[in-house]
């Protein structure tokens, strides 16, 4: 699987994501001790913690689908301050594929919703890259768990967003998939992208991470 | 005295309404206090659990 036609990122202004002593809560109880993070382009942060420590809740809060009960986050971007949604994409535990739509339709929907061009060949090229070559007209519901994960990850290749928010991306992927994903993330980082992901059993990603956040009890 | 209480043939309806009024407000009154007692017991035991 070649990575050459990964579309280059937009102009390389310096953008920084600040998360300052943030805490999330579930049922009125704070889930983890306050955390701080300063994520710039070209960096990767990995969040780890035992099950139920609030990794997904934290990632959803950063993506904009949830909220912080303490502290908060700012995204300072030179020309448009509150454009976090334009610069980030979230692939969550619930992958976001519509079961009764085909892979192409799912991808096309995600692309148009985020305003990036969606030519047929570009979409199928992305599907090839994630190893879903022949599955363009296959219903997303009939795919295996790993293939569904790949379909969700293929969105990242189409929407050129600088900040990738991935919730346990390596789960359900086979060895080849993990290698490809590791390769793809590193390529994204080297090209001036940034990634914030949760993973707890993958040694390789922990070594590559610039920031390692472990969620402690509150 | 009895004539005073007699509401003509509407005894059942008038006294029924009054009884209903009394009973429902009493139920509300009792449920408040039961809720209160149960709540303070619950909080105190939680406090003891946290200190121990």
């Amino acid at each position: 699987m070649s990575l050459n036609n990964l579309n280059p990122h937009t102009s390389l202004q310096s953008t920084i994501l600040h998360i300052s002593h943030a805490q999330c809560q579930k049922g009125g109880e704070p889930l983890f001790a306050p955390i701080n993070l300063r994520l710039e382009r070209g960096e990767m942060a990995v969040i780890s913690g035992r099950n139920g420590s609030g990794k997904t809740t934290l990632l959803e809060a950063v993506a904009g689908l949830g909220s912080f009960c303490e502290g908060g986050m700012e995204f300072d971007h030179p020309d448009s301050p509150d454009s976090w949604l334009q610069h980030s994409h979230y692939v969550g535990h619930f992958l976001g594929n519509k079961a009764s739509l085909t892979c192409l339709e799912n991808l096309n929907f995600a692309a148009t919703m985020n305003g990036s061009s969606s030519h047929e060949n570009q979409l199928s090229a992305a599907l090839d890259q994630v190893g879903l070559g022949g599955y363009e007209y296959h219903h997303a519901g009939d795919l295996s768990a790993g293939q569904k994960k790949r379909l969700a990850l293929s969105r990242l290749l189409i929407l050129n967003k600088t900040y990738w928010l991935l919730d346990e991306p390596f789960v359900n992927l086979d060895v080849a998939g993990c290698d490809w994903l590791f390769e793809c993330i590193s390529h994204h980082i080297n090209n001036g992208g940034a990634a914030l992901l949760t993973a707890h059993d993958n040694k390789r990603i922990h070594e590559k991470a610039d920031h390692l956040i472990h969620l402690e009890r509150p | 005295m009895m004539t005073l209480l007699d509401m003509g043939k509407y005894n059942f309806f008038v006294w029924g309404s009054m009884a209903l009024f009394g009973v429902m407000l009493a139920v509300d009154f009792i449920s408040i206090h039961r809720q209160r007692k149960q709540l303070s017991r619950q909080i105190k035991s939680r406090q003891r659990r946290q200190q121990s």
Partner: protein
Amino acid sequence: MNKIVKFYHEMGSPPSFYRITGYWLKPFFVLALALTVYGLIDGLFFAPPDYQQGDSYRIMFVHVPAAWMSLFIYAIIGVCGLIAFVWRMKVAEAVMMASAPIGALFTALTLLTGMLWGKPMWGTYWDWDARMTSELILLFLYIGVMGIYSAYDDDPRKAARLAALVAIIGLINLPIIRYSVEWWTSIHQGASISLMGGNSGIKDWSMLRPLLVMALATKFYYLYSMLHRARNYLLRTEQNKSWVMRQLTEQ
């Protein structure tokens, strides 16, 4: 002027709201009890019988105040819902969720006493009269608010905000319901002697006095019951705050 502002600020913060309203509970209850006893005795024994309905109209002294209360309390729930939703005030959430049960109770009381009054007056326990129908729909509004709150009982803050939203939607909808139901009955069966409409015709002060006394009595009881539940609500939702423990150990 700053006395009022200070009072407003104090009522806004849960611990001082809890402490201040603690003193008002006893007086409200005593007042409510006294007024009820006086109103009922006055209404049942001293008010003259109605020339048309004889003594059955005395149910009005319980039915009409309850009906007024059911509407009055929903208006309060709607306003508190608006405050709680826009300014996220904990005390407004407490007052809203504390008023809902007592409001539903008064609505149910109105429906039941209305049926008991309907039997002697119309000959049937239930008649789809304009006021009774909108009272029944009001009961659904109350059940809606309480239902959405208890559905999300794992996260009290979110449950309160959703209940506030449902209360606001209900408040906007209330006049529409009353108007459409009024309009609907006026087409089908002409203006029957509606239960609540009857009292506006009362000229006799000795009939009106017990009614107003009872209306006041139910208001005081509402305040007592609501403040009590609001304090319980604050205890429950602020459990891990320090002031809760202090308050409990004092009493």
